[in-house]
């Protein structure tokens, strides 16, 4: 993420548009926009982990589940303020991320990806087993639900905060360390970068972001946390979003989040094939086409365009 005038201007434009938008949207569309914000936060988290330290995770749905259930349970049992639950979810997921990051140090590449995939599959099953406290298949309901407008405002505020936090982390010493690790672990370690600390830290930060996203996700479904909301498909959606986003571009992240947050809903309105199956066909086809055309995501496309402009 570069610090030049043009990106700052685009940030301002984005902020203004987002602030004005809810007045133009119906409640249903506000909820959709909030969903985009939710994915934005989760994808940003994954981007920090995979894009910057090169550790692949297909398990972020698990962290979203932990965050979402934290919010739901704290609200149901203790009637806690929702924002407070999110902060607790953030902390809990940060720690969980560190706990996962530590053994993850031993794994690399595709083995790590599949190990995190194992998490994505297993964690949502836990509420089914321990149904007494965790609600089982019936799920957990928060004590109060929120309006679509509140959800829109809160989620986009959180997204903005997350983006700023991410930007601060990535431009500082930590960010340089992350990038060094991504480019060459051996070189990074030889230069004195404490590999285990930074790699684990990246996992923690990444999980924390996903946890907050999970809280919003639950609030977005009427405050209802259920195991099948956090299935493997969710982790795959976050991965798809990160791939579409590409690396290191705010607009890329927004594109990725919009892609995953909006496309399934939009494609359900496609008349030709109709119904849920048609939705899958369309979504699947578009995912494939996007990857064929933009293998490096939207960020890659933007980078190519700016190179063309520079040469012209």
């Amino acid at each position, binding site marked *: 993420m570069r610090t030049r005038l043009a990106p700052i201007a685009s940030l301002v434009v984005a902020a203004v548009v987002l602030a004005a938008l809810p007045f133009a949207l119906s409640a249903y569309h506000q909820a959709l926009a909030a969903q985009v914000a939710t994915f934005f936060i989760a994808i940003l988290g994954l981007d920090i982990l995979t894009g910057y330290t090169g550790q692949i995770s297909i398990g972020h749905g698990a962290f979203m589940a932990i965050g979402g259930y934290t919010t739901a349970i704290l609200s149901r049992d203790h009637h806690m303020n929702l924002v407070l639950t999110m902060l607790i979810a953030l902390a809990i997921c940060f720690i969980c991320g560190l706990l996962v990051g530590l053994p993850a140090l031993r794994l*690399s590449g595709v083995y790590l990806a599949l190990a995190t995939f*194992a998490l994505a599959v297993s964690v949502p*099953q836990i509420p089914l*087993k321990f149904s007494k406290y965790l609600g089982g298949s019936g799920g957990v309901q928060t004590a109060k639900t929120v309006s679509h407008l509140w959800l829109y405002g809160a989620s986009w505020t959180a997204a903005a905060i997350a983006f700023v936090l991410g930007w601060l982390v990535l431009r500082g010493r930590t960010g340089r360390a992350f990038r060094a690790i991504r480019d060459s672990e051996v070189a990074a370690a*030889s230069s004195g970068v404490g590999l285990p600390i930074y790699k684990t830290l990246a996992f923690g930060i990444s999980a924390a972001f996903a946890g907050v996203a999970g809280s919003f996700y639950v609030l977005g479904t009427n405050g209802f946390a259920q195991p099948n909301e956090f299935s*493997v498909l969710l982790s795959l959606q976050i*991965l798809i979003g990160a791939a579409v986003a590409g690396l290191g571009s705010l607009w890329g992240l927004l594109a990725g989040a919009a892609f995953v947050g909006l496309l399934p809903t939009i494609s359900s309105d496609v008349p030709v094939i109709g119904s849920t199956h048609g939705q899958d066909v369309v979504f699947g086809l578009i*995912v494939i086409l996007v990857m*064929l055309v933009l293998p490096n995501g939207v960020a890659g496309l933007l980078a190519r365009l700016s190179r063309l402009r520079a040469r012209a």
Partner: protein
Amino acid sequence: MELARRLPTGTRALRLSPVFLFLGAACVFLLVGSLESTVFAQQTVSGVALGAVYGSLALALVLIYRATEVINFAQGEMAMATTYVAYQLMLWGLSYWEAFFITLAVAFAFGGVVQLVFIRPVQHKSVIAVVIVTVGLFILIDGLVAWKWGADLKFMPAPFGNHVYKLGGVAVSRQDLGTIAITLASVVLLWALFRFTKLGLGMRAAALRPASAALVGVRVDRMLAIGWGLAAVLGAVAGLMTEPAVFVLQPTLMQPVLLYGFAAAVLGGLDSPVGAVVGGIAIGVFLNLVGQYVHFVTSEVRLPVAFAVLLLVLLIKPTGLFGRKRLRKV
């Protein structure tokens, strides 16, 4: 735990590595247990049949991974789709075995076409892009099958019937024996292809060192397409053997199998075909026995338990049981 460095494939040296010792001990345990208790024996045999199916799919995953360093998330759905093809062929009046072999041929073509159309354009650009394409294929195939045939339950004739043999007091179903035989046959045939034929050698060369293979005249891209075709055939076998085990055909047929297949492939080591099969059988037998004797393990916990075991093995041996250790000193 310093494990014996495994020489790459080709040597016939016998290694008394901890992995072999462990597996040997496990086999002895299974044998003793089966002799002691008929329930144990039954669970073991059906576990082997179940595991053989997981191993088939895992082998398909390993085939593709070895050739292209890509995990094919769509492997299960491709297998499911080819099972529906068999179903359709039988609706049109073909006998089971006629449909079976035609389906295998269709699967081979299907796999090759998928590689050609969807994978080849991206395979040199970005590994993550290829993986996402396979995820997109997963979703696409799922939708297409449900659209064409509907998501309701369908029924297929059982290839081996429902007969149950009694061998020394142990009840063994003909279906389980048939499954083991068919998957064993397909694995052995595949092994023979790779070991003894020029095509197999070309495919191995293309997977090991594509640049060097091209220099000796191997058409690397064609080998990749054939590899995908063979993997699809393995998947088809897995699908056709899964359907009778769960009694119904529906679009979600192969989703749990895919997950167990992933676990088996990683457990065995992603670049080891032997590991895939051993891993599959190990998971099948383990889950059956643990499900029988450990009360905590109920049906919804089977999958997490399989993955918990996998994670445990990875902590001890980060590249799986038979995987090659990539030395990277830092």
